[in-house]
């Protein structure tokens, strides 16, 4: 050997790095994972199907958070299941199964690292999407805080979807497996909800379900009462059990270096299946509670039935209109819509001294139908308070503020007048005439609300009865409405008890 010859390379002893072996393996997998490529697709789908939809809703946590759970899950289902299947089928596709069999780590450990990397990227992308949506909502919402259970359920779904896709890719390592796993996951998740029938359906275990199925956006829940964690708990239990069972099953084939794992893996699989099965049984025991959420007796905490405490947002009008602070954005329009009618009846015996927003009450109907309305009379208490359910608390398309005000004018306005004048469902001709006269004086239409808009506090379509044009009652109403406001009030102040009792004939109206 000459002096100029290069020194022979000596093997460098392995130094313990900052990362343990499993951590280094995970880091390698993270750098080469297909889910990274899928994140832009998932984010784009989240924006298109979930973020835009949520931003079109009023800034209410109880509307946006459940909508986010369903939308985010559908946006992430195919990228996660597909990328996991792609990762799981890697060794088979690249024909490196024999090559990696001789590696020091058991097969299960290698597979778990690849699964964990896929799940980590999916979770990172999902949490980023949730952060944006919740951050924007936090800036816009007037009351309340983030509802975390919807975010948790979707977060628990991602490892399960990843595990299922990964297992499919491992079992059938083909280039066709990822698309079939992605389409299959979407199909099962999206269309399985077709099987839900009522609030006691086992299919409510689907992580897409946040409330009674098929009622659409529902702003009536989780504003006056807490967001019940019963169904989310069962869903998380199911998803965790499913994840554990599938990951445990991956170790069952054994292989070199992993035969000792079979028994613990079998135990893990059985435990996961038991947890998932128990969760399904719990979901099947659910029932729709009066506040619009699914309650599961075995998981229910009675403290969740207590109403939330809040300071209502009230208008500074003669008869204050008070709303839940979450709906404070609607207060000016609501107060303005009711002001003319309230001015007509304010100060009369039995007239409301305040209008207060009330919680909607839910009742399960046949199949997936749910009836929603106000329990009890519209006016109650001493001094009398008119209880109001905003139309946005009822299922249906989200309304603009002006549309909501118009609907309130034609539903709650007549209801307030009818409650003050009395007569119930079958008023006397004089009562009808006075109701119509006060509505005319307040600038209201006297034909009642349209059949499609449910009036507050009454059965849908039941408008306060008004006299037919051309009838004697209609003529009396026109005559009474034409009186000066002071004359109307003076007459009503003297005769309202008798009018309410139905003791005044039509001819006695001035």
């Amino acid at each position: 050997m000459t002096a100029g010859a290069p020194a022979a390379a000596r093997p460098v002893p392995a130094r313990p790095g900052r990362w343990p072996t499993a951590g280094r393996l995970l880091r390698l997998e993270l750098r080469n994972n297909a889910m990274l490529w899928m994140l832009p697709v998932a984010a784009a789908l989240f924006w298109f199907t979930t973020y835009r939809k949520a931003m079109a809703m009023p800034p209410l946590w109880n509307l946006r958070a459940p909508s986010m759970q369903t939308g985010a899950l559908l946006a992430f289902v195919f990228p996660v299941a597909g990328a996991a299947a792609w990762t799981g089928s890697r060794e088979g596709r690249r024909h490196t199964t024999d090559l990696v069999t001789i590696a020091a780590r058991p097969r299960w450990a290698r597979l778990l690292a690849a699964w964990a990397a896929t799940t980590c990227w999916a979770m990172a992308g999902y949490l980023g999407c949730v952060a944006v949506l919740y951050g924007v909502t936090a800036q816009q919402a007037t009351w309340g805080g983030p509802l975390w259970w919807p975010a948790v359920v979707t977060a628990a779904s991602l490892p399960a979807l990843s595990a299922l896709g990964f297992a499919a890719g491992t079992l059938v390592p083909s280039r066709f497996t990822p698309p079939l796993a992605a389409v299959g996951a979407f199909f099962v998740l999206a269309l399985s909800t077709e099987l839900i029938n009522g609030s006691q359906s086992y299919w409510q275990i689907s992580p897409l379900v946040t409330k009674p199925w098929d009622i659409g956006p529902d702003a009536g829940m989780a504003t006056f009462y807490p967001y019940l964690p019963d169904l989310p708990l069962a869903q998380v239990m199911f998803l965790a059990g499913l994840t554990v069972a599938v990951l445990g099953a991956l170790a069952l084939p054994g292989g070199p270096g992993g035969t000792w794992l079979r028994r613990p893996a079998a135990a893990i699989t059985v435990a996961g299946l038991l947890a998932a099965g128990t969760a399904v049984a719990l979901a099947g025991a659910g029932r729709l509670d009066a506040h619009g959420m699914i309650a599961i007796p075995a998981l229910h905490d009675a403290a969740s039935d207590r109403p939330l405490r809040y300071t209502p947002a009230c208008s500074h009008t003669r008869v204050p209109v008070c709303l839940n602070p979450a709906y404070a954005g609607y207060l000016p329009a609501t107060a303005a819509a009711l002001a003319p009618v309230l001015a007509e009846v304010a100060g009369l015996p039995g007239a409301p001294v305040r209008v207060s927003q009330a919680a909607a009450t839910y009742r399960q109907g046949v199949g997936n139908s749910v009836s929603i309305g106000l329990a009890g009379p519209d006016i109650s208490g001493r001094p009398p308070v008119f209880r109001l359910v905003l139309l946005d608390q009822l299922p249906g398309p989200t309304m603009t503020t002006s549309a909501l005000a118009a609907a309130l004018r034609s539903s709650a306005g007549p209801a307030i007048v009818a409650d003050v004048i009395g007569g119930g469902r079958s008023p006397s001709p004089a009562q009808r005439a006075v109701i119509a006269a006060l509505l005319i004086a307040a600038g209201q239409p006297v034909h009642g609300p349209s059949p499609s808009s449910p009036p507050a506090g009454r059965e849908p379509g039941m408008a306060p009865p008004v006299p037919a044009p051309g009838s004697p009652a209609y003529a009396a109403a026109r005559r009474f409405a034409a009186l000066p406001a002071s004359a109307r009030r003076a007459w009503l102040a003297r005769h309202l008890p008798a009018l309410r009792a139905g003791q005044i004939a039509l001819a006695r109206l001035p």
Partner: protein
Amino acid sequence: MTADGVSEAAAARAGDPPPAGPLTAGLRLVRLHAASRRVPAAAMAIAACAIGLRIALAGSWDSYGALQLPLVFEAGSAAAIAVITASPLGEPERVTGRWLPFLRLATVLVLTAAAAAALAAAGAGAHLAGGALDVLRNVAGMTGLGLLCAAVLGGGLAWAGPVGYLVAGAYALYTQWHGPALTTPWLWPARPPHDLGAAICAGLVFAAGLAVITIRGARDPVGE
């Protein structure tokens, strides 16, 4: 005996077939190309989608589910067509394969036609929302998306296009119930079968995908 004579004699002893004619060679080329792209497996996947659709149509679905159902199987078929663009041979094949663009074109066209026919046949006699015209438009459009994805992401991940579009299309269908409805023709699954704008959009995407995959092929790393 010369070296050539030795090799000829060895070939004769091994029982090699005599040199084939152009037709036989062409058929062999098609067969080898189809085998290298897993075309038989793709055909089986398309058949499975058609059978799945037929079985699903036998069930009872509400109007929303019934509209969404064919789209799922159309996306599955389009994804299966898109992934066959992945080449296991890579650069050597691209350099030496004179007929490769035509083979790619023919393979995609045949499989797309087969998928549309199979899915339309699966809906015969049942209530297939949108009918055969809808199937043809959706399969062609989503296959085009898959082919474009193959050119960008590689054949292995080309399924992301059709399957991602499935989610967008299903959402567009959902907005027909829970407005505001999305009516752009680029979301053709949500448009009626006879909508010309939607058909043109789907056709444009299919033509673009077909052109790109015929000329360039999929972007594929060797070994995938």
